[in-house]
């Protein structure tokens, strides 16, 4: 069958019109079951404008003097699957005890009172308001959440350790070895992932527990109530009450990182 030029143009023109028309009608139709999806925060989650912690060093020290309490450290290690590594150079720490002189380097002097000298203080990530680690991270693996928590996205960490160099508090640890090899697989908590060799980790203020409406593990386990956790922006919060009534210090405030861990001594 021979089609002449005129017929060919007529048919293809009609075809185009039909095609365009059907597209328009398709757009007019309701989307129907086109995968509507939505994400919501957990209803139980604890919320704050600015999470912060107060360490009541006096209460803590008294207890440590008594029986060498390390409840918070152990609780954190358990909840976050932090291995006990044999080589101290490979140590992974989220919350740990540090000597007074090292905790408040620059703020102490050699004639400090006996009650403080050489005594262990609890240290952890300060969740700085101006976190230097976040500024240097090339992949934005570490970032500051709206509620002030400085978080790690382990998925994104490439292990360059810039953040470790930037952090003035030594709050970050690098996984030099595969942590799984040093974890008891029966005691591993499936709720929190372990890490792999080559990523940096640190305290996350128990963001995963806050999301479930729970207080951070260290705060929850402290029988002395020496760790006080709350919203710094809320004038009625427990942390604000303590900070209003007692003298508090922070670690290396002169660096301008605005640490959000306060020590009352």
């Amino acid at each position, binding site marked *: 069958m021979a089609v002449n030029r005129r017929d060919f143009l007529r048919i293809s023109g009609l075809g185009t019109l039909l095609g365009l028309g059907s597209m328009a009608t398709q757009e007019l139709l309701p989307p129907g079951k086109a995968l509507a*999806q939505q994400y*919501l925060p*957990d209803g139980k989650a604890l919320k704050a404008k600015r999470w912060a912690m107060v360490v009541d060093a006096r209460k803590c020290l008294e207890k440590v003097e008594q029986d060498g309490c390390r409840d918070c450290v152990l609780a954190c290690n358990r909840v976050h*699957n932090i291995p006990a590594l044999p080589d101290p150079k490979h140590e992974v720490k989220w919350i740990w005890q540090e000597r007074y002189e090292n905790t408040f380097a620059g703020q102490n002097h050699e004639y400090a009172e006996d009650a403080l000298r050489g005594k262990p203080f609890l240290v952890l990530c300060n969740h700085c308001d101006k976190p230097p680690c976040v500024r240097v991270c090339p992949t934005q693996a570490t970032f500051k959440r709206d509620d002030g928590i400085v978080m790690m996205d382990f*998925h994104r960490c490439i292990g360059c350790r810039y953040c470790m160099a930037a952090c003035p508090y030594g709050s970050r640890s690098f996984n030099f070895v595969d942590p799984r090899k040093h974890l008891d697989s029966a005691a591993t908590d499936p709720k929190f*992932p372990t*890490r792999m060799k080559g990523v940096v980790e640190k305290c996350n203020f128990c*963001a995963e527990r806050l*999301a479930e409406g729970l207080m951070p593990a260290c705060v929850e386990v402290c029988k002395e109530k020496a760790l006080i956790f709350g919203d710094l922006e809320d004038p009625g919060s427990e942390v604000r009450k303590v900070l209003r009534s007692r003298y508090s210090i922070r670690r290396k405030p002169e660096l301008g990182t605005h640490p959000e861990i306060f020590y009352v001594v």
Partner: protein
Amino acid sequence: MYDKGKIFAGLVIFLCVFTSPIWYNVVTGKAAYKPDPKLPVREKQCVAPKETMIASHMTLLDTWRDKVVREGDREYVAWDGKVHSISLSEGCMKCHSDKAAFCDQCHNYVNVSPYCWDCHVEPKEKK
């Protein structure tokens, strides 16, 4: 035609070598198998229709991890209005509780090794 014998002999050898995988499979029956992921018994409906899950579960998981870690959104409202908790160990693996019988089936078949389980703790085998 010159060297007729050599050419045809060569062609026959070539065809034998070329089709050898087929013959290998005919003889042993091992090379070709269909991956058979075991679907959960108690739950019939996943967070999206089966076809979507098969085709793009990896994209969904990627979105989920960003939502949870970076934005703190831990609940997912599926297309059918059901609310699911976003978690690999505590969500997905609550139904798909056997990694070897589910995930590994297709992943091994297509020779991909996602590194989820380098960090996330896979559910322990029930004994």
